[in-house]
């Protein structure tokens, strides 16, 4: 029965099958080889998205980069450096350059607070209990407020004469109203209010991705909750925390309306996006606006790269759970 067995490696010798072999190699196998590489008609489905991406993202972006090398006469006069005048202006003008630090000063703590505060909350809301959906919905509510309403609300609620200060004074915790808006704190608050739900939801989903039987296993091995957290959950959650940090950092880093509305727009919350918009909308200096905007992207990506680098040292395989 086993006459047909021929287990030779089919590599070079096609001596045994001369008929049609050449044809096959040229016709079918080209199609097969292309298909093998993933190239076939169905790639057409990618075309709209690719066109869109190139037209609305890549092109404007490159155009924007190009613009940065066409500084206005004013910038050239002021900073010299020919086509690099905008960059000189960016780096040499502390009024502009300091906005990097001012942005970081907001975005880093905001992202950190959002991530750190989300961990215990996500933990408490893990598992099933009555009212969980309600709780979750409440925590997600700020998404509906939007930055502008949050700003308006903060100004009214946390202003000098707002309910918060009134209450604290009434109760006797403070004598004079606290300055909570139109400054750094106001913007930080608003970043936490709008960023926390995102961080919370993300971390919840990462947490639910950790197979509960791992914790059960740790329990049967005698680990108490602290040990379970530190030795099992945390290491598995860490990559998710890094991702969450990145995403909330991105949100906080691009802070714009609240920096103007509840912040100190030219002072302590003179963030990069405000500076970019100031150049764009108030000074009509598009090349400088692009320069600031591009530098903003560069700085942000640098931070992300650092976090990703850190993350690459962590365990990042499957966490056993769903998906």
């Amino acid at each position: 029965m086993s006459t047909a067995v021929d287990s030779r490696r089919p590599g070079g010798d096609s001596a045994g099958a001369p008929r049609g072999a050449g044809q096959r190699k040229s016709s079918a196998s080209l199609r097969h080889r292309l298909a093998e590489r993933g190239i076939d008609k169905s790639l057409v489905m990618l075309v709209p998205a690719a066109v869109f991406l190139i037209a609305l993202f890549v092109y404007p972006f490159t155009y924007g980069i190009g613009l940065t090398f066409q500084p206005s006469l004013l910038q050239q006069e002021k900073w010299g450096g020919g086509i690099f005048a905008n960059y000189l202006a960016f780096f040499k003008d502390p009024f502009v350059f300091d906005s990097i630090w001012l942005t970081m000063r907001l975005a880093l703590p905001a992202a950190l607070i959002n991530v750190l505060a989300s961990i215990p909350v996500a933990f408490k809301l893990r598992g099933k209990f009555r009212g969980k959906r309600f709780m979750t919905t409440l925590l997600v509510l700020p998404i509906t407020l939007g930055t502008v309403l949050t700003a308006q609300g903060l100004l009214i609620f946390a202003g000098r004469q707002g309910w918060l200060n009134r209450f604290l004074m009434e109760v006797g915790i403070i004598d004079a109203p606290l300055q909570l808006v139109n400054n750094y704190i106001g913007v930080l608050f608003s970043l936490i209010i709008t960023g926390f739900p995102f961080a919370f939801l993300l971390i919840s989903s990462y947490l639910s991705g950790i197979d509960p039987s791992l914790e059960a296993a740790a329990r049967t091995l005698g680990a108490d909750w602290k040990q379970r957290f530190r030795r099992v959950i945390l290491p598995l959650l860490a990559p998710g925390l890094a991702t969450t940090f990145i995403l909330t950092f991105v949100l906080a880093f691009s802070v714009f309306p609240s920096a103007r509305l509840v912040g100190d727009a030219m002072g302590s919350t003179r963030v990069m996006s405000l500076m970019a918009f100031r150049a764009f909308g108030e000074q009509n200096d598009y090349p400088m606006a692009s320069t600031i905007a591009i530098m903003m992207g560069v700085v942000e990506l640098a931070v992300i790269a650092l976090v990703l680098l850190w993350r690459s040292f962590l365990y990042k395989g499957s966490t056993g759970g769903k998906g």
Partner: protein
Amino acid sequence: MATDVIATTPTAGPQTPGSERARKRATRAARSGRAPGEKALVAAPSTWFVWAGMAAFLIFLLGILTSVIVDSFGKSWFSTWLPEVFTPQWYAKSWERFDLTHVIGVTLTVAVSVVVLSVLIGVPAAYLLARRDFPGKKLLSLLFLLPILMPPITFGIPLATVMYNLGLGRTIWAVILVNLVPSVPFVIMTMTPFIEQINPSIENAARMCGASMRQVFTRVLAPLLIPGILAAAILVLVRTVGMFELTFLVSGPQSDTLVVAIYRAMTSAGGGEARQLVSAMAVMYTMTMMIILVVALRFVNPTQLVARVKDSRED
């Protein structure tokens, strides 16, 4: 830890096995979904801290929300707990003053167009990215990620400049186009796990039944992807209605969406509008968003609002 446990499980001595008390306690523990002995651990001060923190956060939220609502109904609210007069007039006024019929019309037109376009563009791309390997895939995936990772201002400003150069500045077209930039990648991100959830062998099965690629798409994939498309659509809707930066950079009075209209009302140079007018508008905005969100949460897992789903819907 040990002392905690002992403190709250005083079983050893007087307990007769199977006594009514023991059973009750077991039942109670069971009802609260906890394993025996867990109680002690949960009552730790950290729990207190967490609940207190959450409460503070919620109070803050509630404070912000009610202040705005009260303000939108108030008149002459200066240095008192509540306004002197309550009136609904600000709603009528702001409706008229800012031509909200138009603004809301624009907002809906923009949102619906963005949803439809980004789904049409994004879903096929998501399918290919999820299922297939082809040269340049990594680069393309990275490119699709960038608009979500970058600050909107970073690409928004060059994009807006291009829009103005093309003469699209301040048109509703520009608003729709710029909003597509983060929306298409977002549809791709949202759809990817839904597509991955569909076992490829279902597609293979359809092909083995003689279905062509197009039939596989229309007869098998499309119906199976409906929940994902719905999720993506709602999420894009929420994000587009809420998108401030990009819209703001290219919109004008005739193409402002609601968020931008509010911002302009708060900052307009010709004289900032009455705060109550802004509050009234903001309340209308929040109500709209809440309705969308509540609808959204019926169809999608809350975590999808921010990230790609990992798990199928809970329930």
